[in-house]
């Protein structure tokens, strides 16, 4: 680094690069703050925010938003990517080799926590997918990740049944552990986090085949 800024030996281009890097970093930071503003607004209101609201929350102009995202759909896609990355970082698989009940509880606690955290955003992002193929693809990917996780967590039990039965079980588990299933337990039936987890634990235990010895 020190050598790079010595006069007469290529210091000027390096300084230029540093400037560009600084600009890029600032731009990247602005982009991230816009995404975080979007997420914060959705969590507060449960509604899709307007460009003006996002700009105000992020502390930038509306123009700044559209310099980084061609339209609000592109911003929704970026918000989805950011959320997937964060959810994956915080949702490491745990207790994979544990006994049946521990694995069920681990999966339910993790999924319940995920629903609790991401439900408002999930509702906004998945509410109107018409004309947004990129978003449709990502919503499909989130669903796939949820299913893959369950397949890994319950591999011992699922490996003991035929493909056709396994598919039926997975469809049932996916419906059971859906975001809106969680939402109804919490919002409509007034269940606490622990009670809602208990509903899922009991139901999964009944739906899964016997654990092989």
């Amino acid at each position: 680094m020190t050598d790079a800024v010595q006069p007469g030996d290529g210091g000027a281009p390096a300084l230029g690069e540093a400037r560009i890097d600084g600009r890029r970093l600032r731009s990247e930071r602005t982009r991230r703050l816009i995404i975080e503003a979007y997420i914060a607004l959705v969590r507060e209101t449960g509604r899709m925010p307007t460009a003006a609201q996002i700009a105000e929350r992020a502390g930038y102009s509306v123009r700044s938003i559209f310099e980084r995202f061609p339209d609000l759909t592109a911003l929704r896609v970026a918000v989805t990517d950011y959320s997937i990355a964060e959810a994956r970082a915080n949702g490491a698989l745990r207790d994979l080799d544990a006994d049946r009940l521990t694995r069920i509880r681990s999966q339910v606690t993790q999924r319940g926590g995920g629903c609790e955290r991401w439900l408002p955003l999930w509702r906004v992002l998945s509410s109107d997918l018409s004309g947004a193929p990129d978003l449709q693809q990502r919503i499909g990917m989130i669903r796939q990740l949820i299913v893959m996780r369950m397949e890994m967590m319950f591999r011992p039990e699922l490996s003991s049944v035929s493909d056709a039965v396994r598919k039926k079980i997975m469809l049932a588990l996916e419906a059971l552990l859906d975001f809106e299933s969680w939402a109804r337990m919490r919002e409509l039936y007034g269940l606490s986090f622990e009670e809602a987890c208990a509903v899922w634990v009991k139901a999964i235990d009944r739906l899964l085949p016997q654990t092989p010895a």
Partner: protein
Amino acid sequence: MSTSAPVVDGRRLRSERTRQLIIEAYLSLLRDSTQVPTSAQIAERAGYSVRSVFERFPDLMSLRIAATDHAFSLGTANAQLRDLNGDRATRIRSQVETRARTCETWLPMWRALNINQGDSDELRSRVRLARELIYRRLELMYQPELSTLSEPMRRYTLIALEALTDFESWGRMRENYGLTIEEAREVWIRTIDRLLPATPAE
């Protein structure tokens, strides 16, 4: 007096028919597209002017509420409780057939209702009522099995059954996984059978 009464009634009947056709146009547009229909689209589909739509409904929310009520009355009429006293397998099959038919017919309407419910207390109350009816129906159909459970377990089982036979559960099986109606029903039948406790002996 005696001649004007039929004239008024005829007018009222025509107006009621127009209202009904507007509601049906709204519902048919929902079936064709995931987009919430505009007043222009509804008017075009019904064969009336936009003005005619707003002469009968002060705004689109009133039309949504009227369409929801119409759908509920049709849905309820076509979902009479059957086989209440049948054996376990008959009751499960009967319940699944009715629920599947309801989901197949009313899924687009249900989605539109859920998208718009945030804007209206009246729509929210109808969503809540629909869910209560589904819950009560499950409670009646599986009363013998549920009666063997303690109170929290009975409620937990009903909540799980409701989640498993939700509209979107049906939508995913049919749209995302491409299951036929019969295949999707089989998934539900198997799932309900596993979730329910053993049927008590007579």
